[in-house]
C-alpha cells in the first residue's frame, strides 16, 4: 500500500511513525484507496508546530493511517474522488478554517467558531444565534413548495432541522441541518482531568454510553499500558450487546407506532425497559453509565447477576419472537415498510453507510468481525437475509441482530467464570507523542475515537466519530421521491443520533 501505514485497532504508535507525505501523494494514495472499496474511519485536521495537518484513518479489511501538511486550503476530495469525504471536509473547514476548494456544498456542520481563530470559511457571525445566515438546497418551479421542520419536534426527541422541497406529497430533496446539540465535546476532552473522560464519553450519545466509553477507555488503556482481565472483558461485551438489543427493540416499537400498529409498540416499549433494567443490574444505571473504566469495569458480574440476566433472556426470548412475528406478518405493516425509503447498495457504498443502515443495503461490514475488541473475538457472526435497503430491511436487520446478540450474551455467560476484579478510576500517565485509534461496533454502527498526545503525554487532539456522521446523508437520500408522510417512518428506521453527530 505504498506509504499507508497499517495499524491495529487500539494500538498505540509514535506520532513520528505516522507517514506524513506531500499533499499530491496524499491525494493520490487516498483517492486510490477509497475508490478501491475503501472506507473512511476518520479524516480530520489538527495543528502541529504551527502547521495544519490532515490525518486520515481508512479501512478495507485492514486499518491504515496517513497524514499530510496543508496551508489554508486544499483541493476537495468530495469533488474529485468520493462523496464519502463530503461531511468530513465540511467538518475540517468548520473546526480549523481550512477550505476544501471546489467542495460542492461547503456549508457549516454544527455552527461554531473555528479552533484557530482564523476568519470563518462560511462567513458566519457566531454572535448571531443558529439558524444563522446560510443557504439550503432549493428546487425551483411553480408547483414546488418547501416544508421546514424543527429544531423542536413534536415528540420527546432531540432537536434538528429538516428542510423538504416537495411537489405535492412527493419529496424531491431533503436537507438535514443539525448542530443544535453542539456541546464542544472534542475540545472539552482535551482540557479536563482524565478522571472526567469516561463520564463525558458516556454522554456523547446517551443511548451509546457503553459503545463510546469503550472507545475512550480502550484508547486510554492503550496509551497508559493498562491491561484488562478476561472477566471484565466479558462484562464489557455483554453490556455492549445489551445496549444493542435495548435500542433495536425500542426502534421496532417506535416503527410500529409510526404505522399506527399500537399493540407491538406497547409491547416492544415495555420489553426494551426490561433490557435497560439488565444494564442496571450490571452497572447500577439503566444506560450502563459508570460501568466501563480504564483498566476494567466498576462492578464485576457475580453468579447472581449472571443468573438474573440468563433468566430474563429465557423469559423474554419467546415474547420477543411472538411480538416480532406480530409486527412483521401484519399486511398493513408490510404495505408501509416495503419499498419505502430505499437506499440501493450502490448508493450505500457511495456514501459509506455503516451499521444496520449499511447492512440493510447489503454492506456486510461489522466492526465486531473486522476489528474485534473485548471478548468479541471468537464469537459467532451474524448474517442478514433481507438486504433491499428499504424500511422493511432496516427493521428486519434489527430483529436478526436482536436474536444474534441474545445468542452472544448466552455464549458469554457460559464463559463468565473467568477471573475478574473491579476497577476504580486510577491515575494514569499517557504515552507521550503518541497516536491511537479505537473502533467498536456500537448499536448504530462503527464508532471511532482517535487520540493524539504531546511530548508531556497530554491529549492535544481528541477526535470522536459517531456512526451517525456517515449515515445522516443516507436518510436524506432515502427520502428522494418518497411521500413526505413517510418521513417519520424512514427517520425511525435509521434512528440516528443528533447529539452524537453534533458532539
Amino acid at each position, binding site marked *: 500500500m505504498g506509504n499507508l501505514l497499517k495499524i491495529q485497532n487500539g494500538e498505540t504508535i509514535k506520532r513520528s511513525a505516522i507517514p506524513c507525505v506531500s499533499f499530491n501523494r496524499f491525494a493520490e494514495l487516498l483517492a486510490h484507496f477509497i475508490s478501491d472499496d475503501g472506507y473512511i474511519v476518520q479524516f480530520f485536521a489538527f495543528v502541529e508546530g504551527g502547521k495544519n495537518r490532515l490525518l486520515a484513518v481508512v479501512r478495507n479489511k485492514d486499518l491504515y493511517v496517513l497524514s499530510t501538511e496543508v496551508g489554508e486550503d486544499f483541493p476537495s476530495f468530495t469533488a474529485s474522488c468520493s462523496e464519502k469525504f463530503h461531511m468530513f471536509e465540511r467538518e475540517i473547514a468548520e473546526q480549523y478554517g481550512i477550505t476544501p476548494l471546489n467542495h460542492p456544498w461547503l456549508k457549516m456542520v454544527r455552527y461554531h467558531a473555528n479552533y484557530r481563530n482564523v476568519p470563518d470559511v462560511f462567513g458566519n457571525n457566531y454572535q448571531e444565534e443558529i439558524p444563522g445566515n446560510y443557504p439550503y438546497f432549493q428546487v425551483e418551479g411553480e408547483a414546488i413548495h418547501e416544508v421546514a421542520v424543527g429544531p423542536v419536534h413534536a415528540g420527546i*426527541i*432531540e432537536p434538528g432541522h429538516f428542510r423538504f422541497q416537495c411537489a405535492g406529497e412527493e419529496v424531491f430533496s431533503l436537507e438535514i441541518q443539525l448542530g443544535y*446539540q453542539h*456541546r464542544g465535546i472534542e475540545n472539552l476532552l482535551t482540557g479536563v482531568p482524565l478522571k472526567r473522560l469516561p463520564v463525558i464519553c458516556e454522554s456523547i450519545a446517551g443511548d451509546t454510553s457503553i459503545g463510546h466509553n469503550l472507545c475512550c477507555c480502550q484508547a486510554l488503556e492503550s496509551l497508559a499500558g493498562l491491561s484488562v482481565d478476561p472477566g471484565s472483558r466479558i462484562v464489557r461485551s455483554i453490556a455492549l450487546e445489551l445496549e444493542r438489543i435495548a435500542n433495536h427493540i425500542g426502534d421496532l416499537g417506535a416503527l410500529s407506532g409510526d404505522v399506527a400498529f399500537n399493540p407491538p409498540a406497547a409491547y416492544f*416499549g415495555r420489553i426494551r425497559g426490561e433490557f435497560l433494567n439488565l444494564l442496571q443490574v450490571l452497572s447500577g444505571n439503566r444506560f450502563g453509565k459508570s460501568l466501563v473504566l480504564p483498566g476494567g469495569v466498576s462492578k464485576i458480574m457475580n453468579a447472581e447477576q449472571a443468573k438474573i440476566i440468563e433468566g430474563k433472556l429465557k423469559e423474554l426470548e419467546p415474547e420477543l419472537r411472538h411480538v416480532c412475528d406480530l409486527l412483521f406478518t401484519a399486511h398493513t405493516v408490510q404495505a408501509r415498510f416495503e419499498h419505502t425509503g430505499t437506499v440501493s447498495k450502490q448508493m450505500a457504498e457511495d456514501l459509506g453507510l455503516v451499521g444496520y443502515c449499511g447492512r440493510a443495503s447489503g454492506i456486510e461490514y461489522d466492526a465486531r468481525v473486522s476489528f474485534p475488541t473485548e471478548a468479541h473475538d471468537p464469537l459467532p457472526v451474524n448474517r442478514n437475509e433481507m438486504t433491499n435497503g428499504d424500511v422493511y430491511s432496516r427493521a428486519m436487520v434489527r430483529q436478526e441482530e436482536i436474536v444474534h446478540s441474545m445468542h452472544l450474551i448466552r455464549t458469554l455467560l457460559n464463559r463468565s467464570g473467568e477471573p475478574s476484579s473491579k476497577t476504580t478510576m486510577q491515575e494514569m500517565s499517557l504515552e507521550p507523542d503518541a497516536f491511537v485509534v479505537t473502533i467498536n461496533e456500537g448499536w448504530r454502527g462503527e464508532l471511532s475515537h482517535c487520540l493524539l498526545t504531546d511530548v508531556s503525554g497530554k491529549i492535544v487532539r481528541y477526535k470522536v466519530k459517531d456512526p451517525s456522521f456517515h449515515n445522516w446523508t443516507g436518510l436524506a437520500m432515502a427520502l428522494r421521491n418518497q411521500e413526505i408522510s413517510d418521513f417519520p417512518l424512514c427517520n425511525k428506521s435509521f434512528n440516528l443520533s*443528533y447529539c452524537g453527530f453534533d458532539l
Partner: protein
Amino acid sequence: MLKIIRNRIEQGCKTTPYPKEPINLYERYRGLPIINSDCDPSIISLCEAVCPQDAILGREKKIDLGKCTFCGRCENVSEGAFVTFSQDFGMGTATREALISDGTLPALAEHAKKHFRKLFGRSLQLRQVSAAGCNACEADTNVLGTPFFDLARFGIDFVASPRHADGIHVTGPISKNMRSALITTYEAVPSPKVVIAAGSCSISGGPFFGSPEILGDLNSIIPVDLFIPGCPPHPLTTLHALLNFFK
C-alpha cells in the same frame, strides 16, 4: 387478529402498582446517597479527589446532587465509609439549594408551591425540550409512556405543541445553539406555566460543565420550579417527582 389477541394474553397486564404499593429497585441502583458525617476527613478528601463532577463538598460533608451523575466512584473508593447510595429514587426538589444535600431532602409534597397542585393536579400537559441532551434523559422520559409506568393514568401527558402545554420539561446542558429555540418554546406556553429541569445537565451542565459551548444552568435563563437530579433520572425518580409535586 388472532395473533394480536394471543400476544395480548401473553403480555398480560404489566403496569406497576406503584405508587399504591412500594417498588424495590435492584440493589446496584444508586439513588439518594447516605452520608456518614463522622467519616475520617482523609477518606472524604479521597472521595473529593475521585469525583469527576466536583460534586462533593468535603468541608460541609455534603453532595451536590445537581452536579452528581451517580457514578458511584466515591462509594467504591471509600468502600462506603463516606458515601453509600441507597435505593431511594425519590430525589426531586423545588429549589436548587436543597439539592446540595447532607443525605436528606425536604419533602417535596409539603413544599409551599402547592398552588401547582391546584392548577395542574387533575391534568398536567408537558412539552419536552431537549436542549443538547444526550438522549438518555429523553429516552427515560419516553419510557414513562410505556405500559409499565403508564403515565397517562395519572392525567399527565407529553404533548406535541407548547401551545397545548402547561409547562416545559427541559433536558440537556442547553447548548448555545438551542438557547433561542428553548426560550421561544417557553414563551409559547400559555401562563401560568411550570418549568422542570430534568437531569444533571439542565441543572448544572452535568458531564459537560466548563464547556464554553453550553449555558449549563436552566435556572439562570428561566425560573425553574422543579429539579429532578440524575444522569439520567430513573423513570421512577421522574414519576415520583411529578406525582409528589402536582398530585
